[in-house]
Structures are given as C-alpha cells and as structure tokens.
C-alpha cells in the first residue's frame, strides 16, 4: 500500500493509508485531546473533541475517525478549533453534576483535565445535569451515570475486548445511558466485574468502590498479577505502602492489553487483611507466638538438619509453590537437592494435574506445551475440552470469545453448559469421563474423510499406521453410546474440524479426571494427526490455574525433574547439574505431594518444609491431611497468610506477596515476566528468596547469594530455556529459547510417537450414590481460595458457591433455589444451598470449589492424580438429601 504524505501543524508526515489523522499526529508527538478514542477500541467519533481543521478547505473533522488523505494540511490547534473544542466541553459540563470536588475520579478525570487545559471554568450555560441514581450496591464498581458523557468506551470495551455483552446504550437523546438488560444493576446482569470498563471511563461515571480509601493513589507502579497463569500486566496504585487499586498496565504487547478479570482487578484487597503474617512465629504448647528472625531461622535450620542426620535424606520433604517466583523455586529445590540430598520436592502444580501434563512432557519431549495466547486469534478452529476459561483463566476466555465472534468455529466439550457455550458452533455435552472415546471417535471420522496432515505426520511422527489400524476398528455408534452424543453432533463437529489446524484448550475436565492420561494420549494423537502443533493456527493450550505453575516446574520444584525440565532418571542430565552445583544428586525419584502425606501418615516422613502452599485446604480429605501432618516431628510453613496449614506448624516464616518483592513469573504462554516490588513487605516479613538464602546459610551452605541478581545469573547460566533471565533486552519466551524444543520449522528432532487407540469401558453407576458431581472453579476465587477468600470485596459480593442441579432433579428432589442440601460421597459430605440450572443434564450436579474453606475437598478421595487406581479429583459419585 502507498504511503500518504500530508502536513500536520506544518510538519511533514508520511504514513500508510488508512491511518487516522489522530494516529498520524500521535506518531509525530502532536497531542490532540480526545475523550472517546482508545487505541484498543474501534474508532467511534462520538465526542467530537478531537476536531481538526484542513487549512485548505476549512473543513472540520473528527481526527480519530478520519483517515489521512494526500496533501491534507491539518491544523490541530487553530483558533476555530479552539472555539469549537471549548464549546463542546462547555456543553458537556453543563450536562454534568457540579460535584467535581467530591468526585473520586479527582485529578484523573479526563474531562476535568481537558476543561482545565482549555481554560473552561464556569460554563455560563444553564446547567441541566441529568440526575440518575447512584448505583453502588455491588462491592466492585460504583456507577454514577449522571457523570456519563456517552463516550461509549465502556460499551465498546465490554463488547470488543471482553465480549461480555453486559451493557449497551439504552434509550435515545438526553435520556441515553449505558445500561444492562432490563436496566438492572450490574450484579443482576451478565457482568463479570472484570472492571475493564472501569479502567477506561474518562470521567467519574464508573469508579472503583473502595471502602478503605478515596482519591488518587500516591504512587503507581507496574507488576504482574499474582493470581492465575495468564500473568496479566498490571499497574498497582498505593498509598502509604498499601495497595489501594489495580488497573491494566495499558502497554503494548502484554497478554491482557486493556483487560483484566475480577480477581486481578479487585481481589488484591486480601493484601491488607488482618490475617497477613508480619513476624516469624513458633509454636509453644500449641500456640503460635512471635519470635525473632534469628531464632526462627536457627531452629528451623537446626531441626531440619538434625532430622536428616538422624533419619536420612528420605525423611525430609519440601513443597514449593506455584505462586512463588522462579528464583524462589530454584533456590528452594536446590536446598532440597544439594543440602538435604533428596528429590522429595514438589509444588502446588501437582494439584493442577501434573501427572497428565507429564504425558505431554514425555511424549513430546518437552515441545509444543506452550503457545502465545495471541495465536488463538489465528486458529482455524478452537476446541475447549473440559475447560471453562471464563472462570479459570478469564483473560484467555476473552481471546476465545473474540475469535468466535470473528467466525472461528468453536467446539465446546463439557457436560455443563458453560458461559462459552453460547459462543460455540457445537456444544458436545458428553457424559463425564468419556472424553477419550469422543476424541478417538472424532479422529476416526476425520481419518475417514482423509483429513490428516500427511506431510507433518511423515516428517515429525512415528507409529501413524498402527494408530490408523486402531481408528479403523472404532465403531462411531459405540462412541455415541459411550459419550451420550448424537451422530448428528459428531458429524457436524467432524465437518467443522476437517482440514483445519486446531487450537485445543485442555482444562481440568481432562487433567484431573480418572482417565486423564488416556484422554491426553488420545488428544495428542489427534493434535499430531491434524498437524496442529508447530503451526500458529493451532496447537495445545493448557490453562495454568496458578501464576507460576509453569515456572515452578521449569525450576525443578518437582520430584522427577531437575531445573530446565531435565529428566532426573537420565544420568547425563544429573551429571550436568552435579557439575553446576558441585554436589552429588540422588538418582532416586522423590515423593510427590500425595506420597508425602502418605509417608507422613506412616511415620516415615519426619519433617516437611512448605513454602507458599496450603495443603490443608487444597488437598482432598483435609482432615486426613491434617492428621498426617500432625504426625510430623517438624513442620515449617513459609507463607503470607495465617493459613490453615500455618496453624499446625512448628515454625512459621512470613514471606512477601508478589507485589512486595522482585522476581519473575512464567505465564501459561511460556513468557518469562520479571517484575519489581510495588510496596515493601508488611512488618518484618521478607521476600521468600531472601528467607531461603538466609536459611541455606544456617543449614551449612557456603554459597550466599545476597542479591536476586545473583540467583538470576545462576539460572540464566545453567538453564538454557531461561538464558536471558538476567539480560537487559527482556527475558522473552521459554518456548523460543529452549534448546529442547523439538519442532522448529526447519529443525529435526526425535520423532514423536503416536500411541495406540485405547477404548475405555466406563461404568460409574452406583445405586447408593446415584448422582455424578462435577467439581469446578468460579471466577471469584482462585485455586482453593486461600487468598481470594480473604478479599473483603469478594466476600461482600456474596457468591455462596451454590450447588447447581438440573431442573428435573430439582423437581424430583422437591427442592428450589436457596434450599439447603446435604451432598454425600463415600468419603465425606458437605452442606450447601442449591441453585437450579437449565444447562445441566439430569443426574449431574456442579459443585464450585474454594467456598466454605474449600469444603468440597471432603467429597473426593486422597489418591494420586493420574495413578492407575485414582478416580480423579474432578468429580465423584454422590447422593443428595434435602435439609
């Protein structure tokens, strides 16, 4: 396309055709005031403030919606323009309540700023403010639409960015306002409280509800959201060392752009809860009492070292954190492996289905496991398998919904009618646990259509022929019977997928179910067959529940792999790290989280060091976990909150929350994101890496890091995937830097095997427990809710985690919305209110986790996820009684 040349305020500018005058001016550093323009939104041209004049023709135009044309001579600040602009602002102010002084938007109000710049004070117009009620019942957003200037940013953000559809214009003319359906308050609409509109509103019409602080923050600085694995870039505003608000960082090239979710935007108020740990403590006669750092560290170091001396390296174990930084997890596992000579180290990522993910790791030799979310936009088709990203990783759901609105076929595989279903081309509401049958069935149908990527298969895989034999033997009618799906739905899906590169989003529905390994194998086969990996138009996406789930594994906080995802079982890999650390590494695979609990129960595990995890809340059968941990001789818990687990610890070490320290997280895309502290740790608390560094010294380590930089340098030196961690050009992406990435467009590698087709006979019907319960998360809480449960806002919102029941079962049990029921499995029971839901099939109930101290964990068995005898953690058979 030809470039267009024009002048703006006398400066010559040339830019591609299609650029708006506003953008062209911006590139040259010429500022034009705007109210309705936002770079992430479609131009709208509503406020007319960005008027400019063409000197030659005298024509006035809104620069945000007018494309550049050859030989324009634009003036952005001529006297005519100024008069018009001033008039526009005067009209807006005349229509605006005179409450600037008390408006929480304060100095940040763009309307007020522009008025001040133009020297508009009194409007001299008859004021005709449009009073509407103040809407402030929900704990997140206050709406005072009398201050609305109808710029439409909130509506466009809601439609174009987060694709929620909660609001749109209502009525005409003077009465026009952004409104929800039936003009209800936000909490009675489909609003998810992502707050994206809130961060964009140029006036005080939408403002943050903050009980503790009103006004603009003193400081603002950038960091990364510490909740889920999307790893949104945020700006935190603070006052007197306390975080008071969060907004998207609005930078280019971030994963979230201008969006956030309700957790990232609002749940940070947990940082100021009274349950934060501010000093080290030790247990005396069952009471935790404050002690000095020296004392706490001395005791912790001495006890752990003594226990190891007395009972051997296998008697001590370490649980690292999928919420702590890369640097911290690296130090943590190094303490375990080097100082304690044990591989008994794991992290909370176990609970997110690591056993199944290990399949991907092993089969694909570490390749293909991560993809940039922006590729979702390029996908030719998207399949959501047991994934409800709107709740687990909300920003990812925006990508999926945007793609679907653009016309990308979306297949939702889920027994529950999730929020993604209305955006889908097909909803496959299969019988839980039958995913592998479905995937094999679809593969067989594609194969019959001759729809596979022969070139890819030939070049990068092996065993396709054996796989095809398996597909040939599949009877699609049997698949329909096993999955409960109709032939029509299967055919429609196969038609939509044929010949395409596919983005598969694989969630907890697969990762934590009984046949997870089989389903994952089936999925990888289909992935390979369609040639989807290695193409930007398809690939495998694993929503990471926790912010540093990927990084904690990369750093080796797992029992069977060394940092850099090196296989512990391979001698040469061990030798590399032995050289790096100048130490001997045990070749024995360590205990995973569940085995640790079992060994403690038996009395053979004597000491446990937990950093940033709360197994008493996040593991199944909390009572059993408690009893087991109480048998330990010594328990150290390092955390930021006085969690359930802290309460039974011998020593409690106060760590720092993500925004109180520096470090790096690796998000679910494999993007390594470094960050600096926003505020200082509370009280005497310290950054976790610092605690580990001090403790290692007391445990006899001769190596003292003393600074985070030194840790980063060591990681960068020894882990090729992270080789730029200490660099200055930004550390970049794990995937692109890894030396073990199998596939590169011209690269070679070991061939990836297809696995044989395995058919599963699944029988779950048990007369005593006739209902199938599906456990899942809700966007208001993260993980087990340890942190989000401490957010006043989230608590005030009053979501109770009602158990969802189908209308038919509701009628049969004679229960209505709000009635309480007792749900009982063979392991335990819970009591909660219920809610009848149209989107559930008979015989199924949905139980949101993380509520009521995560009591849903009482229902499932404490088994090793992915193990041959494990029924999975995703659901269980239950009976229901009305209370």
């Amino acid at each position, binding site marked *: 396309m030809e470039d267009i040349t024009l002048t703006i305020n006398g400066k010559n500018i040339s830019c591609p055709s299609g650029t708006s005058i506003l953008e062209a001016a911006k590139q040259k550093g010429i500022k034009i005031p705007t109210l309705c323009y936002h770079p992430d939104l479609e131009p709208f041209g509503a406020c007319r403030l960005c008027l400019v004049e063409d000197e030659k023709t005298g024509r006035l135009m809104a620069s945000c919606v007018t494309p550049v044309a050859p030989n324009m001579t634009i003036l952005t600040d001529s006297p005519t323009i100024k008069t018009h602009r001033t008039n526009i602002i005067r009209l807006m102010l005349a229509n605006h309540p005179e409450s600037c002084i008390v408006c929480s938007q304060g100095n940040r109000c763009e309307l007020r700023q522009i008025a001040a710049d133009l020297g508009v004070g009194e409007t001299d117009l008859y004021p005709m403010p449009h009073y509407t009620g103040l809407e402030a019942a929900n704990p997140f957003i206050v709406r005072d639409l009398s201050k609305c200037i109808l710029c439409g940013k909130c509506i466009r953000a809601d*439609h174009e960015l987060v694709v*929620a*559809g*909660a*609001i*749109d*214009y*209502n*009525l*005409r003319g003077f009465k026009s306002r952004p*409104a*929800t*359906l*039936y003009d209800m308050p936000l909490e009675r*609409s489909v609003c998810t409280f992502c707050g994206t509109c809130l961060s964009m509103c140029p006036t005080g019409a939408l403002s943050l509800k903050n009980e503790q602080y009103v006004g603009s923050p003193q400081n603002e600085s950038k960091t990364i959201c510490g909740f889920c694995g999307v790893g949104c870039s945020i700006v935190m505003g603070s006052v007197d060392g306390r975080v008071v608000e969060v907004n998207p960082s609005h930078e280019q090239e971030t994963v979230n752009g201008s969006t956030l979710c309700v957790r990232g935007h609002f749940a940070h108020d947990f940082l100021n809860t009274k349950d934060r740990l501010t000093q080290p403590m030790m247990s005396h006669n069952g009471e935790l009492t404050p002690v000095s750092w020296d004392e706490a560290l001395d005791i912790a170091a001495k006890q752990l070292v003594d226990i190891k001396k007395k009972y051997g390296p296998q008697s001590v174990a370490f649980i690292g954190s999928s919420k702590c930084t890369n640097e911290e997890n690296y130090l943590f596992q190094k303490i375990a492996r080097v100082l304690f000579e044990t591989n008994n180290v794991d992290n909370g990522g176990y609970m997110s289905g690591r056993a199944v993910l290990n399949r991907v790791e092993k089969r694909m030799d570490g390749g293909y496991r991560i993809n940039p979310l922006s590729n979702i936009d390029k996908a030719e088709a998207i399949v959501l398998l047991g994934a409800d990203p709107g709740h687990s990783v909300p920003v990812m759901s925006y990508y999926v919904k945007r793609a679907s609105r653009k016309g990308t076929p979306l297949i939702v595989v889920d027994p529950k009618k999730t929020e993604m279903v*209305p955006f889908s081309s097909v909803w496959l509401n299969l019988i839980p646990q039958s995913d592998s049958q479905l995937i094999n069935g679809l593969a067989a149908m594609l194969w019959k259509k001759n729809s596979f990527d022969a070139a890819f298969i030939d070049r990068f895989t092996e065993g396709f022929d054996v796989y095809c034999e398996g597909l040939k033997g599949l009877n699609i009618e049997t698949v329909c019977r096993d999955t409960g799906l109709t032939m029509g739905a299967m055919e429609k899906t196969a038609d939509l997928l044929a010949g395409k590169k596919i983005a598969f989003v694989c969630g907890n529905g697969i990762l934590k179910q009984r046949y997870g390994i089989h389903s994952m194998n089936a999925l990888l086969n289909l992935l390979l067959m369609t040639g989807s990996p290695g193409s930007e138009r398809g690939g495998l996406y694993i929503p990471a529940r926790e912010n540093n789930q990927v990084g904690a594994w990369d750093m080796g906080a797992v029992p069977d792999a060394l940092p850099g995802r090196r296989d512990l079982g391979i001698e040469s890999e061990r030798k590399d790290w032995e050289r790096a650390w100048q130490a001997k590494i045990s070749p024995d695979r360590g205990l995973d989280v569940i085995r640790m609990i079992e060994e403690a129960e038996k009395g053979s595990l004597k000491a446990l060091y937990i950093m940033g995890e709360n197994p008493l809340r996040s593991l199944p059968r909390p009572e059993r976990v408690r009893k087991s941990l109480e048998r330990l001789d010594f328990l150290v818990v390092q955390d930021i909150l006085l969690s359930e687990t802290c309460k039974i610890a011998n020593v409690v070490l106060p760590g720092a929350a993500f925004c109180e320290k520096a470090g790096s997280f690796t998000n679910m895309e494999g993007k390594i994101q470094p960050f600096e502290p926003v505020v200082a740790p509370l009280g005497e608390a310290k950054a976790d890496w610092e605690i580990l560094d001090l403790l290692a010294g007391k445990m006899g380590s001769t190596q003292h890091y003393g600074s985070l930089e030194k840790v980063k340098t060591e990681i960068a030196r020894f882990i090729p995937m992270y080789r730029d961690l200490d660099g200055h050009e930004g550390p970049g992406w794990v995937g692109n830097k890894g030396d073990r990435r199998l596939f590169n467009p011209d690269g070679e590698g070991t061939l990836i095997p297809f696995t044989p087709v395995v058919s599963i006979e699944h029988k779950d019907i048990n007369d005593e427990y006739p209902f199938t319960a599906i456990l899942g998360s809700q966007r208001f809480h993260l993980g087990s809710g340890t942190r989000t449960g401490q957010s006043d806002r989230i608590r005030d919102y009053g979501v109770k985690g009602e158990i969802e029941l189908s209308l038919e079962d509701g009628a049969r049990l004679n229960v209505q919305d709000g009635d309480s029921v007792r749900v009982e499995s063979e392991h335990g029971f819970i009591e909660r209110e219920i809610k009848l839901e149209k989107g559930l099939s008979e015989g199924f109930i949905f139980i949101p986790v993380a509520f009521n101290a995560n009591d849903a964990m009482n229902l499932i068995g404490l088994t090793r996820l992915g193990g041959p005898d494990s029924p999975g953690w995703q659901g269980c058979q239950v009976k229901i009684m009305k209370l």
Partner: protein
Amino acid sequence: MKPKEIDREQLKAIIDRHRGKTWALIPLLQEIQETIGYIPPESIETVAEALNLFPSQVQGVITFYAGFSLEPKGKYVVRVCRGTACHVKGGRSILRLMRKELGLDEGETDPEYRFTLETVACLGACFLAPTMMVNRNYYGKLNPNKVTSVLAQYRKKKGES
C-alpha cells in the same frame, strides 16, 4: 392490569425464521412489533440468541427507535400532536377531549388493550394543525366533533372483529 395474552407459537415462528441472520435484527423486531403489537421484554433474550447478539444490544436497538415498544399497546395507538403549530390551533383541548373520551392519561392503555394514548412532538403535518394519528392514519384540522366521530369509527371496528 392483567398481562396481555400473546401468541407464543407465533412469536417463536417469527424468531425462527430469522435465526442466524445477524443483519436482520430490525426487520425481525418490526415483524414482532407489528404482529404482537409490542416486543415482549422476555423475548429479548431469545431474539439475541437466535441472532448471535448480546441481549443488551437488542434492548439498545429496541429502546433507540420510537417505533418499537417494550410495553403492550392497544390495538389502536392514538398519537395527539403537541407541536407548536398544533398548540397554537388548540391542540391542548384536543388532547383534553381525548383523555376524557378514552379515560386514559398519556402513555396509558386500557385494560382490554383497545386504545393507547400518546403524544408526539410534531407529526410533520403542521399545515393540517391540530393533528393526530391513529396507528398509521393521519387526521388533521381536528375539532371536537371530528375527534368523536373518528373515535366512534375505531370503536365500531373493534366491535366487528
């Protein structure tokens, strides 16, 4: 007032005929408005789902156009002009008479859903002032006699049907 009975089957048929055609929102709404006499609020979500739009968007369009109504209206919608020209020519007394005749205030509908009384800013027929409309028919140069006879005509029609 008892809610107006609506023919759900008919409504469903109209919506189904436009399913998947996002561009057809306005014709679809027009058809509902004309057939049912208004757009039942509870149909917003069904319409949105059929056209792959957000319910809030559909509501936005309905409330934007004066031709759409979310409330049931009478079979005959009487719109009396309140514009300047009509005002000068005695439009006020026409409105007063209409209120008395129909026993309705502006914006009201009788319980049998026969008549709805509305006012408008200008019907665009000022040369005929004072004016009013009943459904799509204009009536100009009104006087009390003419008003009663026009009304009588519609009342009779009602009787026939």
